[in-house]
């Protein structure tokens, strides 16, 4: 379960809009800034390389023009003097050293004579970075530019200029631009993400209001959105809220009518119950009056008197049991009491008239041995309604079965009939959590709604164990409340 929730959180599709949109803005900004930074740096790099090439060419042009006569004469001083003076002139190039060699590769003079003495051969390691035919080579890893220029005189190469320039400043400039750009873009991205977050939060506020009201409605409390809030919304949400309010009013009215209908049904049920009771009382009454007549006429005879009194006692006992059961069912009980064996067993008497009408056989199995920590009245009402519904659904001369038991402290009551089975929508209605807040539909009776509502109130569960042409079995499962269990323990 925990893994499923964690997986759900990781799935971006499940994230709230207030997170997704700013995140999307941030990602887009980041992508745009990355592309821009890349383009700017590429352009900067091109410009720098171009600039360096031009500067290197200017440096080599200037040097070679002044050096050729001196190199031709192999005038060491003049070569050195030219190199020494060029240092100031080409400060922008940041030349580390320059070597001028003659045709044999011997150093005529260098800008740093202590490092590269005159009249010696230039070392291979010094010249290995220079490439023939490539005037300037940039080595970013070494932060160095390697420049080389051949010195021609009358069609012959009389020497070469080798120079090493420090391009650390150029790379530093590029790195500074990169840092500035990245920082600016990061700040902009964060700023836009915050703005996006706030904007989205503001935009989806009506959705949250609607969501809150729908949540409340699902818990059975349908409240209208106040006009003051409706009027503050944009036209789309104003229209949506208006429609929701119309819908809520309609649902509230329907619920009100349903409760009225339930009251009427209750009264009708009471009527049916009263007539059933009257019928049950009327049956023994005939025998009792007969017994009274027999007593009046033949009361002196011992045998007649005994038989009449037994008949009277039997009839009165039946009437007393019926009255007791009815009292137990409909007595206004301010304090909930625990469910007992008798509470359910009494129901047989209440169902009996209905069963008798349809010549139904009641198969009764009550296995509750001791009191269960459940409210007796709603459980009885729910089971009674299930039994009455089963009687109604069963075919004549059919069978209605009742089986109640307690397993691991949980009450399980199965009611089976031999009807034509439950329609799918009723089955779905009975099994859906919280469905009892609204009546079932116009085609179905209120009995099952009452069962569902009572079940929801007790946090119970209805399950259609079996439903088909041979009949239906509905199971009511009620679990004692945990707190109460702890308390009881």
């Amino acid at each position, binding site marked *: 379960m925990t893994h499923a929730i964690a997986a759900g959180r990781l799935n971006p599709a499940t994230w709230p809009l207030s997170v997704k949109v700013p995140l999307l803005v941030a990602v887009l900004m980041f992508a745009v800034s990355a592309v821009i930074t890349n383009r700017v740096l590429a352009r900067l790099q091109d410009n720098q390389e171009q600039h360096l090439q031009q500067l290197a060419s200017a440096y080599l042009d200037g040097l070679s023009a002044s050096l050729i006569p001196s190199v031709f004469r192999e005038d060491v*001083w003049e070569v050195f003097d030219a190199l*020494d003076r060029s240092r100031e002139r080409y400060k922008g190039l940041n030349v580390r050293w320059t070597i001028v060699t003659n045709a044999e590769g011997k150093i005529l003079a260098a800008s740093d004579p202590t490092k590269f*003495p005159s009249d010696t051969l230039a070392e291979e390691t010094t010249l290995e970075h220079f490439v023939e035919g490539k005037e300037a080579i940039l080595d970013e890893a070494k932060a160095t530019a390697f420049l080389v220029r051949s010195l021609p005189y009358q069609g012959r190469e009389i020497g070469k200029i080798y120079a090493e320039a420090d391009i650390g400043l150029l790379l530093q400039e590029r790195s500074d631009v990169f840092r500035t750009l990245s920082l600016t873009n990061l700040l902009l991205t964060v700023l836009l993400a915050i703005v996006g977050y706030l904007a989205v939060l503001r935009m989806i506020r009506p959705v949250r209001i609607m969501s809150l009201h729908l949540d409340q409605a699902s818990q059975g409390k349908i409240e209208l959105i106040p006009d003051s809030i409706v009027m503050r919304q944009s036209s789309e949400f104003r229209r949506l809220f208006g429609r929701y309010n119309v819908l809520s009013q309609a649902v509230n009215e329907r619920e009100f009518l349903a409760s009225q209908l339930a009251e009427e049904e209750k009264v009708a049920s009471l009527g049916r119950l009263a007539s059933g009771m009257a019928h049950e009382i009327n049956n023994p009454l005939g025998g009792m009056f007969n017994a009274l007549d027999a007593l009046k006429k033949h009361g002196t005879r011992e045998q007649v008197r005994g038989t009449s009194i037994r008949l009277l006692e039997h009839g009165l006992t039946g009437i007393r049991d019926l009255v007791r059961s009815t009292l137990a069912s409909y007595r206004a009980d301010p304090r909930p009491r625990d469910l007992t064996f008798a509470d359910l067993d009494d129901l047989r008497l209440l169902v009996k008239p209905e069963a008798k009408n349809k010549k139904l056989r009641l198969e009764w199995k009550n296995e509750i041995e001791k009191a269960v920590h459940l409210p007796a009245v709603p459980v009885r009402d729910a089971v009674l309604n299930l039994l009455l519904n089963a009687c109604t659904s069963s075919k004549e001369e059919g069978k209605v079965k009742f089986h109640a038991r307690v397993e691991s402290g949980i009450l399980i009551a199965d009611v089976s009939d031999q009807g034509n089975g439950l329609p799918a929508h009723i089955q779905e209605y009975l099994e859906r959590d919280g469905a009892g807040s609204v009546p079932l539909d116009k085609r179905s009776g209120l009995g099952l709604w009452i069962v569902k509502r009572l079940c929801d109130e007790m946090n119970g569960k209805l399950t259609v164990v079996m439903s088909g042409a041979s009949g239906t079995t509905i199971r009511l499962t009620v679990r004692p409340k945990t707190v109460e269990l702890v308390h009881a323990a």
Partner: protein
Amino acid sequence: MQSRRQFLALGASCVWSFNTGDAVGAVPAAPINFGLTPVLLTNDLELLTKLKAYLSRKTGREVQLVQRRTYEEITGLLLTGQLDGAWICGYPFAQFREQLSLIAVPVWRGKPLYQSYLIAPKGRAATSIDDLRGDIHAFSDPNSNSGYLVTASLLAEKKLRPDQFFRQVIFTYGHRNVVRAVASGLAQSGSVDGYVWEVMTTIEPELTNKTEIVRVSELLGFPPVACLKSRRESEGVRLLHRALVEMAKDDEGRHVLNLLKLDGFADEPESVFDTITAKMMLIRSLGS
């Protein structure tokens, strides 16, 4: 540049006209051409400007300062009469002593004398010329006394030519350049004018501090201002002579002398340059 020269010439002629009382509209006198060799700190523009201004004012004539890269060029101009006078080196004076005459000799530290220094990079720990064998050696000019002749004659005493003693010799055509070459490491040793080196210790100590003196020569005649013997009595030379020997008495002149770090100019006998002549003869005898 031309307009500036014209302006200076005009200014100089005006001053001369004022001093001499010549009538306005008179034909201006020909300029005095004064040659300078790299014995001077020729890179100092202020010095050149002040010197020219002083000489122009003092002579009452426009003075053209003529500079060339080598001693040979200036000596050539002087010998061919294209210059009225020139500040040359003692060696060319010794070479052409019969054709040249002294106008004045600079006085430095109270004497018309100076020395030649053998220098090496600081820390070289060389004490004599023998320690410099196999060096790349920087000379000033093949016609310089302190910047070539002194060292060449020292080697001539050992029956050696510079190219035999040193691995390589380079000519920098300026005493300051000799110091630069040694200070930078281009040359491992150099021959330089002692006066120039000493002046540089106050003007450019960052350069001289990188060098040290290996050997100091004997006192020799200071590079003189000379002219063709045939022109010694000409108006231009006479004016130049007066301007030079009276320089120490003039405020502007003293300013120029201060820039040159000299005491003044004086009339000295030609015998001052006998030692240089002797060195020259030694080299000639060796054929170097």
